[in-house]
C-alpha cells in the first residue's frame, strides 16, 4: 500500500464539490478521489494513486516506467484488492477476469 500506482485520468467529475474521476491503470479502470490534485490535473494526465487517492501528477514516461517496475516486482497489490473489493465498479468499467493478476507468476 506504500507504493502508489500510476494511472491515466480518463473522466473527471465533481461530486457536490468533491472532485473524483475514473483512472485507467494499464487497462483496469477504477474510481479515484482527485481532491488533492484538483488544481493541476485534467483528463489525459497521469497521476500516482495511493489506495484510491491521487497524490501527485507525473509525466507519461515516468508513469509507464513505474507501472512496469511494479508489474515486474509483483507489487500491484492495490489492483488485486480491486478484484476482491466489495463494491464492484459498474459493469462497463469492471476489469476483465484475470486482468488484475497480470504480472504475477
Amino acid at each position, binding site marked *: *500500500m*506504500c*507504493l*502508489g500506482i500510476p494511472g491515466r485520468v480518463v473522466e473527471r467529475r465533481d461530486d457536490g464539490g*468533491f472532485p473524483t474521476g475514473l483512472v485507467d491503470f494499464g487497462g483496469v479502470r*477504477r474510481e*479515484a*478521489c482527485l*481532491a*488533492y*490534485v*484538483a488544481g493541476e490535473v485534467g483528463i489525459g494526465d497521469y497521476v*500516482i494513486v*495511493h*489506495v*484510491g*487517492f491521487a*497524490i*501527485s501528477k*507525473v*509525466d507519461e514516461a*515516468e508513469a509507464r*516506467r*513505474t507501472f512496469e*517496475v511494479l508489474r515486474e*516486482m*509483483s*507489487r500491484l*497489490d*492495490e489492483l*488485486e*484488492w*480491486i478484484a*476482491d*473489493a*466489495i*463494491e464492484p465498479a459498474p459493469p462497463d468499467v469492471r476489469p476483465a477476469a484475470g486482468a488484475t493478476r497480470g504480472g504475477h507468476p
Partner: protein
Amino acid sequence: MKYLSEYRDPAIALALIERIRRIATRQWTMMEVCGGQTHTIVRHGLDELLEGAVEMIHGPGCPVCVTPLEQIDKALALAARRDVIFTSFGDMLRVPGSDCDLQQVRARGGAVRVVYSPLDALELARRNPEKEVVFFAVGFETTAPANAMAVWRARELGVRNFSVLVSHVTVPPAITAILTAPDNRVQGFLAAGHVCTVMGWTEYEPIAERYRVPIVVTGFEPMDILEGMLMVVEQLEAGRHVVENQYVRSVRREGTVPARERVEEVFELVDRKWRGIGEIPMSGLRLRDEFAAFDAERKFGLGGIVVNEPAECRAGDVLTGRLKPPRCAAFGTRCTPEHPLGALMVSTEGACAAYYNLARHRIGESQGVTT
C-alpha cells in the same frame, strides 16, 4: 554480478556501482526506510554487489509489519462483533494476532471485507445503515491522506455508523529513535520516495542537522537506490550531512500541500507502539477530538485491550538492524509466509518475506528453503 542481467540498463548500474566502490574509503552503514526499497535491494542483490563499500540495514518501513499486535487484536475483537462490518486493505488479513487473523475470523462467519479505498468503506456504511462499519486505518504518510479524507467526508455527509481503527505511524520519529538507540550503527539514510511525495522533506532537515547524518530522498527502482547510495556515500566521504533529493521526478520539497493540510486537520500526533520495537514518542496519528465520533477505539471502548508481543518473533531485532532474517532460528522453519510468526513474514514489503522469497527464487521450489 549475476543479477545485473535483470537491470533495464546494466551499463549504468555497473557505472554507479564502480563509482561507489571508487570513492568509498571504508565500508559505510546505511538504512533504507521503505519496504519497497528493501524488496528491490534483496531481489537484485544490491547489498552483495556493494559488499565492503556499503552495508545496508533494512529499516522499519513496512506498514503491515509495524502495526502492533495490540491493534491487530483490537481489529479481531471488532471483526467478531455481530453488529460490525469490518473493512481493511487486503494485506492486513493474514497478519497474525494473538489467537488468529482476520481471515480466520471471516471463515468463522465474521463480516470482514477487503476494500480498495477507505471511501469504499464509507460507501458501505451509507448502504448499510443498520450496521456499524469500521475501517482499519493503517499505514505511513502515504495512506494517511486517504484515511483523513474518508473521516472528513463521513462528517461532511453525516454518516454516523462509520468509524476507523487508527494505527498510523510516521517516518521521522522512527529515524530519530534509530539514531538515538545506544547501539545505533546507521550512518546515512535513504528516505522513502513516496512518503516524501506526500510530505516533502522539511521534517528531515532538522534530523540531518542535529544527528549529523546524510538523508537522501530515494525512489524504489534499482537505479534509484544505487544513485541514492552514491549520494549518501559522497556526503559521508565529504563530511557533509544534509537532505538531498534523488527522486526529483516525483518529490518536491513541500510535498503535496492539500494532502498534508487535510492530514493535519483530521489527525494529531500521539505516542504509538511499533510491532517488535515498542513505543516511539509522537510517532503515530490519532483522530483529533473534533472527529472522536469516528474513532472506533473511543466508540467501542477498546482502550482496555493491552497486548505484549510474543517472544519467539524477533521482528524488533530485524527492524532495528540487529538481526538479518536468515539468521533468525525460526526463519524458514517455524516461520514461513504460509505460517508466519510475525508480520515481517506476511507482507511482500517485510524484510523476512523478502529474504524468504529470494531464497525460493535462487534455490528453486523443488529444493525447498533452508536459508
